[in-house]
């Protein structure tokens, strides 16, 4: 897959049904560690569904049924007995719309650690600082930690949501169209941020924006009608796709 062939997450014959609707069909995908993998494809092809499989958020949807295997560091997270809480601490999610809690900046970032049992105010402050530093918010917000999160700009809110996630020290960050609610300048900033974060985290991002996939990702996967059509190093996918459907999509002939 990548130069050294390491894999953080691998899906094997992953199928998902929403009731009678077959949303993911035999998806085999490999996600390399500490890189950005983007999932592209037309609307409704199953990108979000695939992403939400990776930390089992689809379990919250009563009608969803999953078969196949999803290996995280070689261990199947679909196997019985997987602790959902520890899985989701390792594989966290950033959503399409910035969705901070209606609390202060500090309370937002410290939410995860606090619920997980860290009550020492000094250590919490340290966690909050490094989580805000990781997303480049510290300098702007260090004197405004008690400010209401909803008073921040959309870009800051989305960064805050990433900080909130980083604070629980995950290994993988799943991002579902994290920039679609942001203007182009803010989008650029968040893309830079993602590249920075990729030094420490494995990132999987769903995007509608092919330029974005081309700009930020190391690996790109193209989906169509619930199938993973092809995936590989981003430059290969964009320069010499193997499949006709991929080529049609990236040249804008459909989708």
């Amino acid at each position, binding site marked *: 897959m990548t130069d050294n062939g390491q894999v953080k997450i691998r899906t094997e014959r992953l199928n998902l049904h929403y009731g009678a609707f077959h949303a993911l069909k035999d998806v085999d995908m490999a996600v390399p560690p500490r890189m950005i993998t983007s999932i592209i494809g037309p609307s409704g092809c199953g990108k979000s569904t695939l992403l939400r499989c990776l*930390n089992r*958020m689809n379990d919250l949807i009563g009608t969803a049924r999953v078969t196949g295997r999803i290996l995280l560091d070689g261990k199947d997270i679909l196997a019985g007995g997987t602790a959902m809480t*520890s899985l*989701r601490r390792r594989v966290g*999610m950033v959503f399409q719309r910035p969705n901070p809690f*209606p609390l202060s900046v500090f309370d937002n970032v410290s939410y*995860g650690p606090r619920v997980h049992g860290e009550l020492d105010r000094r250590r919490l402050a340290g966690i909050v600082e490094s989580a805000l530093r990781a997303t480049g918010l510290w300098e702007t917000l260090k004197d405004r930690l008690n400010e209401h999160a909803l008073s921040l700009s959309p870009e800051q809110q989305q960064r805050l949501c990433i900080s909130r*996630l980083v604070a629980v020290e995950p290994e993988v960050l799943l991002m579902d169209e994290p920039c679609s609610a942001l203007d182009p300048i803010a989008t650029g900033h968040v893309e830079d941020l993602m590249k920075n974060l990729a030094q420490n985290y494995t990132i999987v991002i769903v995007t509608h924006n092919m330029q974005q996939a081309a700009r930020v990702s190391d690996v790109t996967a193209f989906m169509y009608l619930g199938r993973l059509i092809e995936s590989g190093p981003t430059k290969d996918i964009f320069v010499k796709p193997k499949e006709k459907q991929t080529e049609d999509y990236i040249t804008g002939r459909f989708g």
Partner: protein
Amino acid sequence: MRLSPAASQRAAVAVMWTMTAATIGVLAFVILYVLARGLPHVTWEFLSRAPESMGRRGGIFPMIVGTLAVSGMGVLISAPIGVATAIYLTEYTRKGMLTTIIRFGADCLAGIPSIIFGLFGFVFFAVGLGMGLSILSGGLTLALMVLPTIIRTSEEAIRAVPQSFREVSFGLGCTRWQTVLFVVLRSALPGIGTGIVLSLGRSISETAAVMLTAGSAMGLPQSLFDSSRTLALHFYILAREGLPMSKAYATAAVLIVAMLGLNLLAYGLMKRFHAKAR
């Protein structure tokens, strides 16, 4: 004759304005009338003394204590049960036969006349379980009576918490219970509080249900097993017996002021709730 659109619009506005003014006017008249007749008799003596000769003289202190004890107990019992039920219905079950039946049951209970709760409380708590006419019987009966309201208002408040908050919390590896405790309840608290305060108001103003369960003793209650008369019931008895109306109106004035205070509190909570959900 046909009215022009502008004229019919003016006519409609005029009609609605009149209706609104009439409603508010009647309400204001009732409240002001009672306050005007009652407030002059509300003195410190009245609030702090026990009644004498069936309430002809003296004050209402034991009734204030009784009211607080009976309705406070009712709400203290029903609030935890009601909120827990609401959490269970919204967060732990999917819409199904059972939850539909529970909701339907709650809605039916909410519409039952309070005298029937009173009768049930008398038969079940006072006689059946041997609690007698007591604060305990009255409190338990009121708890049953306001339970449906608390369940429904709490449910509504919990449902109003955006789904995305729950997803975020699950996504950070929190359990459902942690999510309920730290995200859902935290956001829903003002709404839940509003329901509880309104229920407290209903308990305080209840007469039929407490008459049959808490009884009408006029002494200062010494324990939960003592019978105690509430303010609303005291007013009812004074007015019915034609004992001095000044005392009846004074009691009513105290009740009205208490209810206004409670409703203002509920309103304040509600405003906070909406400000937060913006």
